[in-house]
């Protein structure tokens, strides 16, 4: 119960910081909207559903990357990581709270992205929405973990995509697969298994990421 309270307090802090600073969500919204507008005019004729599904997932992935890159910016700029690390809460609570806050920003961006995609390209089916929800969990779990590793390095802006994109390939495979085939079950299962595996690994090993 205290673990849940710690996660709640830390996630609330992250949401409050974003509400005040407005650093992350506006950038994510602008980026994802701009991608769809640009591709709407850049793709000649009527692109196939297969092509635009790939575009949708590229847009979601890079929008998420934008949010993930900023996840630990308050801690880095204001050097508050020491304060969180010293607190007697389980250190995985820091990762979980950050993941939840990033998930909230990503869902907000997708609430704009999916209607725009439907407006410019093709309708969004139930399988795609299920894939988005499952992919979000994996993206935020893995991305937040890697974001904490990258933020302490000088090449953080380069390191995060370099680490994250290869690890996100199974998400892309599962998500695109679930969005285009008639029976998306096994692709959704792949996404769910990815979420479970990486969430457990990140939760169990975050302690070592923040230790000096």
């Amino acid at each position, binding site marked *: 119960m*205290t673990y849940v*309270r*710690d996660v709640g*307090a*830390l996630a609330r*802090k992250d949401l*409050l*910081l974003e509400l*005040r*600073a407005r650093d992350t969500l506006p950038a994510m919204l602008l980026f994802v909207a701009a991608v769809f507008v640009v591709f709407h005019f850049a793709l000649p004729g009527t692109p196939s559903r297969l092509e635009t599904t790939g575009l949708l997932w590229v847009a979601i992935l890079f929008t998420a990357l934008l949010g993930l890159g900023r996840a630990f910016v*308050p801690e880095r700029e*204001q*050097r*508050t990581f*020491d*304060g*969180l*690390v*010293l*607190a*007697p*809460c389980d250190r995985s609570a820091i990762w979980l709270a950050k993941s939840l806050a990033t998930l909230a920003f990503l869902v907000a961006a997708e609430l704009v992205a999916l209607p725009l995609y439907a407006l410019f390209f093709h309708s969004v089916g139930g399988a795609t929405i299920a894939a988005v929800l499952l992919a979000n969990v994996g993206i935020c779990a893995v991305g937040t973990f890697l974001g904490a590793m990258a933020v302490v390095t000088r090449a953080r802006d380069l390191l995060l995509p370099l680490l994250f994109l290869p690890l996100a390939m199974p998400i892309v495979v599962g998500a695109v697969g679930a969005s285009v085939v008639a029976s998306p079950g096994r692709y959704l299962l792949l996404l769910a298994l990815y979420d479970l595996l990486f969430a457990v690994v990140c939760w169990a090993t975050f302690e070592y990421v923040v*230790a*000096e």
Partner: protein
Amino acid sequence: MLTTRRLGKRYGEKRVLRGIDLTLPQGGFLVVTGPNGAGKTTLLRICAGLAQPTEGTIERSAARAQVGYLGHEPLVYRELTALENLELYGSLYRVPERRERIGMLLERFGLWEARHERVASYSRGMTQRLALCRVLLHEPELLVLDEPYSALDEAGAELLDAQLAELRGERSFLVSTHDPARVQPFASGALALST
């Protein structure tokens, strides 16, 4: 309370700390002095549990929840108010009767009127006072204070003096300073580091 034996720390090839033996008994007040680059901050970070030594051993009887650390940074969020920062730390440290404790500390350090203002609008001295409130919030057994008087004006420094005088003997202190005369009345021991 705190004992180190042959403690050392290297960052790659660079050795920043070497062969430190110190003993801080329960209720002791150890002053750490030394020139810039002598390793005072590194030693304090190790003693607070923020860094691991690369040589030697450290034994600390206080658990993580019982350590209060004041570093060069105030460890508070600039976009949050003083109240929100202390609420966050109070929650993480499971401080009982949190509201009352926070109110008392803000009053004592002269920040009550500014409690709803964002820390970004605070002066450096006010931020340092808030950092002291954060350190004292959970009534730690071991206080590790790195240059606690920096940025404080005379009124702030006197408030800190009063706090140290009140807690001296009850809590254990490890304090680094460039002005040992200031903490001399409280000190029970000293450790001088050299480069």
